[in-house]
């Protein structure tokens, strides 16, 4: 291929092992200026590992990297950055206590004499964020920002460094459609200015839109590299999974009449006003809305993670406010959208993570370790979690497998009602299907599920009824055939009727 000649960064026969386990088996790869090269594959296929090797974060166990045709070795990521190689990680890499501006300029602060030039940095930070259409104050602290806004800051940080090679590991996993569009536009601009871009995502439509070339990895092996033109989403999915995929969404379960959750006039100060809705047994209820609409805040208010006023009744009984434990005991659990900071203890092993929420099921005085072990075996099997080693830390699982572990942890509490915030964030298409089936099966067994998602197809495909939120209140409700992307977006932006029903 001619690309090899003009490649700015290329890799030959990359092998990577973690301990005794080999996760990359001789992968070739190259990046060409002015091209977007997409890397796709299932969860745990080795995409992040490959990207980290290219970005200088990890050293290959065997194999060679070439920069501008010359063999290179990066001793650390700083060295790679000095060569113009930049990476946006799948998991956030921001200092939570620092401000947006401080994060964007971390390690390359602008100086005026011996002092920091705050004004210049703030102005530049603001300009970068405006390019991304993200209106956060550069002086606000990262910990106060929503997940998507954090991602935009991360992207702004990379944009500000004028990278020759930009490596993006699932940058859109936490973004909504609108933000994704903005990001893809920025990628287009970077491509035109000659940046080589490596991109991965589990949203195959994005790959279709943005990629010039596509490489497929499966179980750490290079399956194919080809031009993106003419590579359909179905063909990508088949290449990734290694088999044909049937319908993505299962049939929608029919809810029963019994109301299991009743929320009345719930307000979360500053975030949500007067939200009321009900959930029935066996129902899958979707929550859609733009980022910042207050969906996560509403759910956190319901389960007692945030101070809230209003009434919540589970199975007819009022729920003690402000207690996650009381909610769990009543049969109501919430699965967070922020698995790294709120969902999993990344440094702890799989078992400790799995049983944390339902630990009292494993003994009130002495923890029954063999029961825990059995639970892990079951979880690995039921949720198809790909683990290399049962004693590994949760943080060493690939992103998608972390999500499955989180799901397993939540389900171990045997809830009647599950609120899942972004159920398939960072999950491959085959696994997505598994999770959709799982949600539908839950509902069919008489459990009730609330799915909060920024992926409209997901809400539309799963839920029989969709509540749309906009700017902190419930903007409307759609059900049956009235559910469509158009209708949801109209409600979310504040146009259209209050309640539409088919």
């Amino acid at each position, binding site marked *: 291929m001619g690309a090899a000649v003009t490649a700015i960064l290329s890799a030959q026969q990359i092998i990577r092992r973690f301990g005794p386990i080999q996760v990359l088996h001789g992968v070739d790869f190259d990046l060409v200026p002015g091209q977007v090269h997409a890397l796709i594959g299932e969860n745990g296929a080795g995409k992040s590992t490959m990207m980290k090797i290219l970005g200088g974060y990890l050293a290959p166990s065997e194999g060679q990297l070439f920069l501008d045709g010359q063999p290179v070795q990066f001793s650390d990521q700083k060295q790679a950055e000095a060569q113009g190689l930049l990476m946006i990680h799948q998991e956030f890499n921001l200092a939570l206590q620092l401000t947006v501006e401080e994060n964007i300029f971390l390690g390359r602060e602008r100086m005026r004499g011996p002092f920091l030039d705050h004004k210049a940095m703030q102005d530049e930070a603001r300009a970068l964020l405006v390019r991304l259409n993200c209106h956060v104050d550069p002086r606000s602290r990262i910990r106060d920002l929503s997940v998507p806004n954090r991602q935009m800051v991360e992207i702004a940080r990379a944009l500000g460094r004028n990278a020759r090679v930009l490596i993006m590991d699932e940058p859109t996993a936490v973004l909504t459609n609108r933000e994704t569009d903005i990001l893809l536009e920025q990628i287009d601009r970077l491509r035109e200015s000659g940046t080589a871009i490596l991109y991965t995502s589990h949203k195959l439509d994005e790959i279709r839109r943005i990629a010039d070339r596509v490489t497929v990895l499966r179980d750490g092996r290079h399956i194919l590299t080809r031009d993106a033109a003419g590579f359909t989403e179905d063909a990508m999915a088949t290449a990734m999974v290694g088999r044909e995929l049937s319908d993505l969404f299962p049939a929608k379960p029919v809810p029963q009449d019994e109301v299991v959750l009743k929320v009345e006039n719930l307000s979360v100060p500053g975030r949500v006003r007067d939200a009321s809705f009900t959930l029935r047994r066996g129902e899958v209820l979707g929550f859609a809305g733009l980022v910042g609409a207050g969906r996560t805040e509403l759910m956190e208010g319901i389960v007692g*993670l945030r101070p809230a006023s209003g009434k919540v009744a589970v199975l007819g009984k009022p729920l003690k406010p402000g207690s*996650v*434990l009381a*909610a*769990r005991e009543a049969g109501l659990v*919430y699965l*967070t959208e922020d698995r790294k*900071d*709120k*969902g*999993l*203890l*990344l*440094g*702890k092993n799989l078992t*400790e993570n799995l049983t*944390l*929420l339902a*630990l*009292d099921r494993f*003994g*009130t*005085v*002495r*923890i029954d*370790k063999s029961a825990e072990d059995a639970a892990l*075996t079951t979880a*690995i*099997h039921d949720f*198809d*979690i*790909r*683990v290399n*080693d*049962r*004693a590994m830390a949760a943080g060493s699982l690939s992103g998608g497998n972390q999500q499955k572990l989180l799901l397993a*942890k939540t389900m171990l*509490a045997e809830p009647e009602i599950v609120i899942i915030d972004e159920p398939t964030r960072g999950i491959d298409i085959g696994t997505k299907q598994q999770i959709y089936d799982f949600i539908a099966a839950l509902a069919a067994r008489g459990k009730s599920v609330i799915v909060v998602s920024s992926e409209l197809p997901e809400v539309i495909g799963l839920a029989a009824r969709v509540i749309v939120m906009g700017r902190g209140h419930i903007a409307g409700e759609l059900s049956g055939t009235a559910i469509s992307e158009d209708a949801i977006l109209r409600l979310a932006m504040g146009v259209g009727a209050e309640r539409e029903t088919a």
Partner: protein
Amino acid sequence: MSDTTASAAPPRRRLNLHVLGPVLALVALIVLGASLNANFLGYGNVTNVLARSAFIGIIAVGMTFVITAGGIDLSVGSMAAFVAGVMIMAMNAMIPTLGVGVPLILAGMCVALLAGLAAGLLNGFLISKVGIEAFIVTLGSMGIYRSLVTWLADGGTLSLDFAARGFYRPVYYDGLLGVSWPIIVFAIVAVLGELTMRHTPFGRHCAALGANEQVAKYSAVKVDRVRMGTYVLLGMLVGLATIMYVPRLGSASGSTGTLWELEAIAAVIIGGTVLKGGFGRVWGTVVGVLILSLIDNILNLASIVSPYLNGAIQGVIVILAVVLQREGKSAD
């Protein structure tokens, strides 16, 4: 992954420096001590070292929980002095009614435990309910208790009534089958502590809280209660340590228990508990306490290095322990 892999026995972990380090250091010290002085392994010296380790040891077990849960307690040394002072005053005051005998000793023990509990509750309340940094709260209470006991003793020494002291002495000096009581109590506390840390929900919750408070909160862990629990547990163990300590000298003063907090924290860290929280092991703390006491003991027995350098050597050991831990981690 397939069932076969899932049900296979978990692979043996390589024994790394992280686990082995403190134990190796302890063994090395014992060998060194034995080669320097023939009496080192004698009954008298061993009992002496262990009994003196017991006070710090009992406190350090509690400290392990506090640190594992992401906290710190600087007040334990002054707290011990304060509890000892209160205990002695209460016992002296109760002699007219109870007389000198078992009831007096039991009453004194109850006072000590309650005083420790109250002090721990206060620390825990300010830290978990009011939300002030643990470092600040316990720095404050460290000063408060120290000054209170000095004030109670009017700048001098609070002494237990002579007859009562004679009656209470066996609690430190006697024992069961030749093992003195402080050693027995320390051993029981250590074993219970280890079991609590590794096998109970409380221990698991401490580690979860120290590793990531948000995750713990989202996982329905009663974060405030667990955090409070660690300080209360520590307070009560300080009370227990005081019960063992008072019969030794029969008095308390403004200088009782000085620097105990640092020794306890050092023992915890040497033992492999992570100072930032998230991971703790009680047996390591026990090893840490023994290492610190042995250094002291060896310096006193063998006259190669001046005993005045004790603090310096302990300091080096603490720093070395942390360095070794880090190596152990990055080698993974």
